[in-house]
């Protein structure tokens, strides 16, 4: 079983990867649009925020 801290790190790195490469219908975003530091803070926020029960995306 992975420890929660490891899972959080993996999630943050997956978010960073998704933003920089653009996954599927998502455009890629570059350091000129969102800096590495901003992206790290965003990934931290997303990975620790509660799920929105109204979210309907797939």
């Amino acid at each position: 079983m992975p420890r929660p801290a490891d899972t959080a790190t993996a999630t943050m790195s997956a978010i960073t990867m998704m933003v920089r490469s653009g996954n599927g219908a998502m455009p890629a975003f570059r350091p000129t649009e969102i800096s590495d530091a901003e992206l790290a803070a965003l990934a931290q926020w997303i990975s620790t925020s509660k799920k929105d029960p109204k979210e309907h995306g797939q």
Partner: protein
Amino acid sequence: MNGVSRRDMLRTGAVGTALLASGAAAASPLDSARMLPPDVNSAAFAAAVAELRAIVGNEWVFADADSTLPYTKSFIPDLRGEHVPSGAVAPASVDEVRAILKVASKYRLPMWPISTGKNMGYGMATPASSGQMVLDLKRMNRILDFDAELGTVLVEPGVTYQQLNDYIEANNLPYWLDVPTVGPIVSMVGNTLERGVGYTPYGDHFFMQCGMEVVLADGTLLKTGMGSVKDSTTWQAFKWGYGPYLDGIFTQSNFGVVTKLGMWLMPKPPVYKPFVVRYPNVEDVAKATDTIRPFRMNNLIPNGVLMMGALYQLAMFKRQRDIYTGTGPIPADVLKAEATRNGLGMWNVYFALYGTDEIIGAVEPIVRGAFEASGGEVLTSDEMTGNPWFEHHRTLMRGGMSLEEIGLVRWRGMGGAIAFAPVAPAKGAETQGQSALATEIMNKYGFDYAPAYAIGGRELHHIIFLMFDKGDDAEAARAETCMNEMITRFGERGWCAYRSSVSTMDLVASQYGEANRQVNARIKQALDPLHIIAPGKQGIA
């Protein structure tokens, strides 16, 4: 819920692995995400990169696989790795742009300028040919001037519509923007230079442009129109200047790098009233067009009208498999039933009236009567509030911020889309002919026909989104073949695109004839003899 959950993918970290495996096959490879230009060897490239780093700083030159990755993403097919950049460089000032072009000239390293690189259906930031280095102007993101009396702005390429929107709100200025779809992440300069369109009375973006600053390949700094006059106060007020009008040759072009652009903004009207007219049948496209045209010509309807096909509308918020699980395109009866379920017609015409209650009160009965006589059902916010499509277009027709139309790209599988945008005169028979031809070709290849007609004054842009699964190479190949056949067969009828993806620029340029191409080539030769700026852009080598 069916399919893949975004949250699950994030949790497992599966995304990165899948993406890293999809490198392009390269003729002159550096690594999976990058390719060198054919005439530049890796030693020369390394020397050029070192000089570029000296200009903009280490962190703003992207010359390895990881850092170049965000520039390679596009939604269009690229099966042979023909649109893979060698890297990217991001200047912060006009002086840095000039210095970069000097280095590019020295090493014959072609530069592909982008503003924000969000050219959704047309290739995003990717260059017309592999090996070009992306010249990313996003860091130049200042609103240089906002004249609150004239309603004019002067902006740099990195300014997004969202940034300008925030500025207007923060300063409580009485003006509206006119946005392309997905405006929040798009550059006002980039969209205007591509001659994009929007949905308010200021919908023809290039028409509302006034003055630009251009860096030429040799470092010359040109300010067009009144901008060339010493101490001029008229740069953003008068478009034409003196002598030949030059702004046009720097749009959809590779004759220079535009570093500043002036735009006119619409005064915010006291009252705004959006409408939708529903038509029940596919064949109604002709009647709808013939009803809209006179009102666009006499300006009783002042805005960029959208006539949206049911399939385009549904694809904004749904996936194909939500509606149909069979193979091939969605059958007509299934589509119609789904449209009806969602409060949509087979065609949905969105227009708006702007002004005062008295003005709108006088105009509404005239246009309402004409649409009803043509078989349309005229609806307003009284009936349609809460309908996601009506809300979307209500936002667009007042220049509001929305990213919803990106939803189109995920219609099938992992997503993918390429746009075909032929123009035609705004006549019913023309729309009927174009819709019939597009349906025939797209269905033959197994794709759905997703149409939107944007009606300007006397013309219409027919925006066709070919939605496919880029994660499936066989399907991407079919999409490519289908697109080529559409461009070719529309061309045989005299219908050509106003704009095209980086993968079809040569084909479309060839349809505009040899004289047109030669004149462009001669201007290119005069202004950029080393062909440093965006070779292949709009078919201009």
